[in-house]
């Protein structure tokens, strides 16, 4: 994968790519027999204040190896990324959760709705700049 940044120092082998390449990388890792990453065991987002980081933890049930795939989302106003639902269907719920709590939109997601919070909930709780004077009291 051109432009991928590989880090072997971490707990899992980590590949970081540009936002637009992540879906290609995912299908490549899933479909290539040598990698065969068919099990997405965790999908999460991290808010680094100036950007979001999407983190995908992958496992292969054939080769029993793991790796992490990462990409940055720099647009905080209108963050969006390609959905992984057509690679791993299990991503559907994880992405709905991230959409709900981080406000990241997933392109081509079959059913992108809030999953935990009410439809009229304002704000995205897991963002670092989220404030809620009633429910979150800083001590």
């Amino acid at each position, binding site marked *: 994968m051109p432009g991928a940044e590989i880090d072997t120092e*971490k*707990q*899992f082998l980590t590949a970081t790519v540009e936002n637009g390449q992540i879906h290609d990388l995912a299908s490549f890792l899933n479909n290539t027999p040598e990698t065969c990453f*068919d*099990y*997405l*065991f*965790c999908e*999460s987002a*991290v*808010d680094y204040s100036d950007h979001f980081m999407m*983190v995908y*933890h992958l496992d292969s*049930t054939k080769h*029993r190896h793991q790796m992490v795939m990462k990409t940055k989302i720099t647009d905080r106003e209108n963050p969006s990324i390609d959905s992984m639902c057509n690679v*791993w*269907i*299990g991503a*559907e*719920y994880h992405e709905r*959760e991230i959409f709900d*709590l981080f406000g990241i939109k997933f392109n081509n997601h079959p059913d992108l709705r809030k*999953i*935990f*919070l*009410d439809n009229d909930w304002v704000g995205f*709780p*897991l963002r670092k700049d989220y404030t809620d004077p009633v*429910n*979150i009291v*800083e001590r």
Partner: protein
Amino acid sequence: MTEETITGQLEEQEFSINMGPQHPSTHGVLRMILKLKGETVEEVKPQLGYIHRGIEKMCEKLTYAQTIHLTDRLDYMSAHILNEAVCLTVENALEVEIPEHIQYIRTIMDELNRIASHQLWWSAFGMDLGALTTFFYGLRDREKILDIFEETCGARLLLSYNVPGGLMFDIHPNFQKRVKEFITYFRKKLPEYDALLTGNPILQARTKGVGMLTREQAIAYGVSGPSGRGSGFSCDVRKHQPYSAYSKVGFKEILYNEGDSFARYKVRMDEMWESMSIIEQLIDNIPEGNHAVKMKAIIKLPAGEYYQRVEAARGEFGVFVVSDGNKMPYRMKFRSPNFSNLAAINTMASGQKIADLIAIGGSLDFVIPDMDR
């Protein structure tokens, strides 16, 4: 109108119905919107969030030692296993060597927790299908494990027995004796479970061939634990990424290839035997040692990312910690097994009857707080 035309009309109409949030068979507050055609389920849309407490957000304002007590409140039936997951993350990040004494006790407690969880599942599963008696049998035996927990940890359900670096205190002097008594007792009682429910023709008719999930679907949805293993998906973290004392014991990973509710039932029944055998291998060999490694009063993880996988009673539980070097995690994500298992319910229940949905839900063994977090 004749009876025939009425039935004909009902079959043609599609309608939506709410199941839950207060429904005995959802084992908590989960609402499922069912699209029905007659009695056949066309689509299941689960609505979550009734017990969403924002635990991941809360963890960002708590120290690592404090976050342990919130993990109990996820899958409360696997409280000890989830506590251990956080402790292992911290210990591995700080590269603390955990003595065998602690590892053995943790593993024994894990397995006791798993048996207690499966007992309650078995009790409730029978009850979901109309066999009320199972509930009394299961809870009678589960009580014995809870008594052992109470004696050693002071708590029966939300144990909070793990602390970073070891255990809160050493095992009670009676612990080994009582665990051995329990194993002897339960080895006699478990065949009763089979005699009472497993061979029952009603149970078999309602679970065999119901809620099919193929191995490929299980992997793609990330359905893990006994539910995944009932579809032949080898996903036991204890086997593939052993932690604590699991590398030191011999046990079988239970796999069934049928992929129906009965296969998931059988996996859990067999797992109770395996758990007892794991405990037996360890209980007499607990090495001498201290119950905790001395840790700093304020635990700070070096900046970086840490992930720990453990096998909870319902499947793979994961803790993902992003640290910025502070005493509180920058981000803490819990990968909960029930959340991923629920994702597959539409695939499993479409085309089945409403009553089958109850059996499927029971065979997936939902714990709602674990989904909602």
